[in-house]
């Protein structure tokens, strides 16, 4: 609800609340006024109705009561005398004659009152046209003992008006019978002997009650003790309907309640409105008992008619109220619009203002009320804001320019820095490269210098040693030849000299031969060393020819293996080969390269053999040979699981004369020469990796061209 109103316009709220308030006040006043007026009218009505019912009942009873007295009086007269049939009929005729309002009278007696032969005695005097007639009734088909007019006073032991009935014999007119019991006094005790009755036409009652009109449609009716309609403007209802059957037929349950009150002898004005059966209008019903007959009078008051004046007045009031409401609505709408119009304009202006149109023109409101003040306040705020905005715009422009400059500077700075950084990093890379190259060159230079100096040294030494060595070798050979000749000569002289001498000379000769042989042998060895040294230093390069590296390697692996086997039959090694078949023939100097392979494989075999000797059967020597095509290069790896190379020796193994083999077993030139062959001659790389006691691996990388 709150939300609903929150969303509504001020105009709506004003109209709604003013209207609701006015409506409630109006309704309250109207209702109060109506109720009070209604109360006054109803009070008057009650008084009038009470008067009307009293008057009506009095009049009806004034008509009926004298009739009721007749049977009663006749009964008393008969009781006081000895009843004879003649007496009875005589009295009946007199009574009927003297009482023109009576239609007929009976004296009816109990069975066999006049003897065993006469069960029935019912003397009936009645008017028939202009004549009075008397008949004696009673037969099996007219068993009057059991008829209400006889039986009820008998059983109730009192006078009673019967339920009205249509008399078929008397022209079908409605009648009622008053019955008075007749007694016989036997020893001071009353004994019922019959009934005296008077029939009276109720046609006058019908006319009388029909004559009662209350406004246009109001009417009176009478019901009997059993609710039977005795008098009603609608003659069809008379004696055919009870108030209770009407209640069912017209579906008016409330009517049954009214009827019950009426037959119980109550009186009242029923407040609850119900539809008048005759007119269909809303009606009230007033009722009062008719004590002597046990009937009840009802008066139907057409409320609408009775209240017509007041209703008309209130209808007018409602019309005025409605007209006033419309007027009020127009006034409220106009006022609220006059209040809210500048507000709406101002709101629209403020909306535009809020959207950035700071120069929007404000409505011109000259009134000095709150709206006018609000407007001028807003105008002031607008001008102040505009000033501030101008300052802000200037400052903002300055700022913008500064900002642009800064941005430009910042942008160029970045480019500069990045350029410089790029240059620097390029330089740096170049420098690093140069440094690496330098380091490489330096290393090369060191090695070359070392090698060159060593080479030069060895060449010099070799040259100097070569000559004396030639002498040693040549003369030792000559000595051997001479010793051989001497031996032959001594053989010739064997018979000439003593045997001991001969043997002694032979011994000396053999020693000479042996010595000379040794000299020759070692001389030759020295010669070969010198030759190698010379070869080393000379830097001589062979002719490169296309060579299948895998085949070459395999040839020398086999050679080395069988060589080792020839020297030591216990030697064995498992060779694992992994040749890369994609390697085409490459340009190498095969005789030099084969030296390198042989060198390395020999070293490996030797190393594993040594380890085998140390560890025995537990150890399984393995030699792994592999080649790999690296595109422009070929990599050859030769790995053994022998003793390995101690870390401290790793940088020395390529030095000439460095060897760990026992004296006489190696020259210490093998790897040095191999290094020259790979690095210098073939422009390749030659690296070693090892872990002492576990493995040693040589890696050779040779460019294909």
């Amino acid at each position, binding site marked *: 609800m709150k939300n609903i109103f929150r969303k509504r316009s001020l105009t709506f709220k004003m109209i709604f609340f003013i209207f609701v308030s006015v409506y409630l006040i109006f309704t309250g006043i109207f209702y109060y006024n109506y109720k009070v007026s209604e109360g006054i009218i109803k009070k008057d009505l009650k008084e009038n109705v009470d008067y009307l019912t009293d008057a009506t009942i009095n009049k009806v009873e004034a008509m009926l009561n004298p009739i009721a007295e007749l049977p009663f009086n006749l009964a008393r007269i008969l009781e006081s005398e000895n009843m004879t049939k003649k007496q009875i009929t005589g009295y009946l005729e007199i009574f009927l004659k003297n009482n023109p309002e009576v239609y007929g009278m009976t004296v009816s007696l109990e069975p066999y009152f006049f003897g065993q032969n006469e069960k029935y005695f019912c003397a009936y005097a009645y008017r028939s046209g202009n004549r009075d007639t008397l008949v004696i009734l009673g037969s099996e*088909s007219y*068993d009057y*003992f*059991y*008829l*209400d007019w006889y*039986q*009820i006073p008998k*059983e*109730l032991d009192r006078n*009673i008006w*019967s*339920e009205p009935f*249509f008399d*078929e014999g008397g022209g*079908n007119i409605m009648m009622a019978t008053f019955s008075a019991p007749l007694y016989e006094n036997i020893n001071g005790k009353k004994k019922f002997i019959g009934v005296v009755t008077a029939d009276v036409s109720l046609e006058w009652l019908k006319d009388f009650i029909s004559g009662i009109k209350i406004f246009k449609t109001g009417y009176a009716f009478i019901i009997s*003790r*059993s*609710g*039977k309609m005795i008098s009603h403007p609608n003659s069809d209802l008379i*004696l*055919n*309907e*009870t*108030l*209770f*059957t009407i209640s*069912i*037929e017209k579906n008016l349950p409330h009517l*049954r309640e009214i*009827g*019950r009150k009426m*037959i119980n002898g109550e009186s009242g004005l029923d407040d609850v409105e119900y539809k008048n059966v005759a007119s269909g209008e809303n009606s009230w019903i007033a009722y009062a008992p008719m004590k002597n007959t046990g009937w009840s009078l009802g008066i139907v008051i057409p409320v609408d008619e009775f209240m017509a004046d007041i209703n008309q007045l209130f209808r007018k009031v409602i019309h005025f109220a409605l007209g006033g409401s419309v007027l009020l609505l127009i006034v409220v709408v106009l006022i609220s619009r006059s209040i809210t119009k500048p507000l709406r304009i101002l709101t629209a202006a403020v909306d535009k203002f809020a959207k950035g149109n700071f120069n929007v023109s404000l409505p011109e409101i000259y009134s000095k009320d709150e709206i006018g003040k609000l407007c001028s306040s807003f105008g002031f705020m607008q001008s102040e804001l505009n000033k501030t905005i101008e300052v802000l715009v200037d400052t903002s422009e300055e700022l913008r320019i500064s900002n642009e400059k800064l941005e430009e500077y910042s942008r160029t700075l970045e480019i500069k820095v990045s350029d410089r950084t790029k240059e620097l990093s390029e330089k740096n890379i170049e420098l690093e490269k140069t440094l690496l190259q330098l380091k490489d060159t330096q290393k090369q230079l060191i090695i070359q210098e070392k090698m060159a100096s060593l080479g030069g040294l060895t060449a010099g030494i070799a040259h100097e040693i070569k000559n004396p060595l030639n002498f040693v070798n040549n003369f030792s050979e000559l000595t051997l030849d001479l010793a051989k000749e001497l031996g032959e000569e001594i053989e010739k002289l064997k018979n000439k000299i003593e045997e001991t001498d001969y043997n002694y000379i032979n011994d000396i000769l053999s020693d000479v031969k042996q010595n000379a042989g040794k000299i020759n042998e070692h001389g030759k060895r020295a010669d070969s060393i010198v030759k190698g040294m010379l070869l080393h230093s000379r830097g001589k390069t062979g002719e490169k020819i296309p060579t299948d590296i895998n085949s070459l390697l395999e040839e020398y692996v086999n050679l080395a293996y069988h060589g080792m086997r020839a020297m030591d039959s216990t030697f064995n090694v498992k060779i694992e080969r992994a040749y890369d078949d994609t390697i085409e023939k490459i340009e190498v100097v095969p005789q030099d390269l084969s030296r390198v392979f042989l060198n390395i494989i020999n070293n490996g075999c030797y190393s594993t053999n040594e380890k085998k000797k140390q560890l025995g059967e537990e150890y399984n020597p393995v030699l792994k040979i592999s080649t790999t095509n690296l595109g422009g290069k070929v990599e050859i790896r030769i790995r053994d699981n022998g003793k390995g190379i101690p870390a401290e020796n790793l940088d020395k193994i390529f030095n000439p004369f460095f060897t760990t083999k026992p004296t006489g077993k190696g020259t210490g030139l093998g790897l040095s020469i191999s290094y020259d062959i790979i690095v210098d001659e073939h422009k390749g790389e030659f690296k070693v990796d090892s872990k002492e006691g576990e493995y040693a691996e040589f890696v050779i990388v040779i460019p294909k061209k």
Partner: protein
Amino acid sequence: MSDRLYSISFLLVIFISFFFASCGKIQKENISDSDSLVKLNPELYKDIPSKKLVFIPHWSPQAQFAGYYAAYENGFYRKYGIDLVILNGGPNNKASDVMEKNNADVASLWLTNALQLIEKKIDLINIAQILPKSALMLIAKKSSGVSKIEDLNNSKVGVWGGDYIIQPMALFKKYNVNVTLVPQLGSINLFLLNGVKATTAMWYNEYNTIINSGLNPDELTTFFYYDYDLNFPEEGIYCFREKFLADSVSYVYFVKATFEGWQWSFLNPEKTLLIVKEKMKSANLPYNYPHQKWMLEKFNEMIFHHGKNENAGLLDEKDYYKVVEEMKKENYIKTAPEFKNFFVRTYYYNTQP
């Protein structure tokens, strides 16, 4: 009459009953085709000669006999070849008297009426039981302190004369209640004025009159005789055995048309009540719509159980002998025919309305 002749005519009756029970068709009220309400094949009855029958209902015109009036007004009897005359019954023209004088051919009688007539050598047979249940009852006011039969001890009770007194007598004997019987002629005024503590009433008639005189149902104590093992089947259709044997077909048609009239009247209550109203007006009787409507509704409950009773028209053998026993006890009759010689079933309910 020989047993053989009786058996043959009985079988004939059964056959005809079945034959025609499947033919009729009753139309409902909202269909405004009034004259051809029964779609019966004319071929089936064209050869049957028109037979004059005089019928007397056992009371004056009211909705109690709506079935006969409706059948008559709709021409059901005519269609079955019966030229029917309906007499007005009532206190001054009792059906039993009329039958005794042979002034009618067929009558609606209570079983007790019929048994008494048979006792008087009027050879009547029951050819259809209309009310299988006793609608007779006693009504007392709760305000008079009556809630059970014993509460009526030492008080006056309104009863109706003639056969109507058999059931109350039997009842009070059975409960050993001492009451003063006040014979009445159907008026409830003495009861309303507290002249009797209880009064005799018919469920479909006086009970409702009392209600329509301002007493509420919850203010009344009611005693239905069938609740006290005194179910006296009431209205049945009776005719003379001899006439029946001579022309059983006409009587079967009469019963057939009558039940069709009842079916029609329950389907067309408003039209039926208009017929009843006319009959009552012509007999100079006050017509009361709510009362006659009530009566018609009660008959619907009792005859067809709202159209669902396959036993419609059947007299219960046990009830028959119960009535015989009670009547003998009260010396109303000394002898009674055997059930099989008393009741001939001519109506079989198999036509769904």
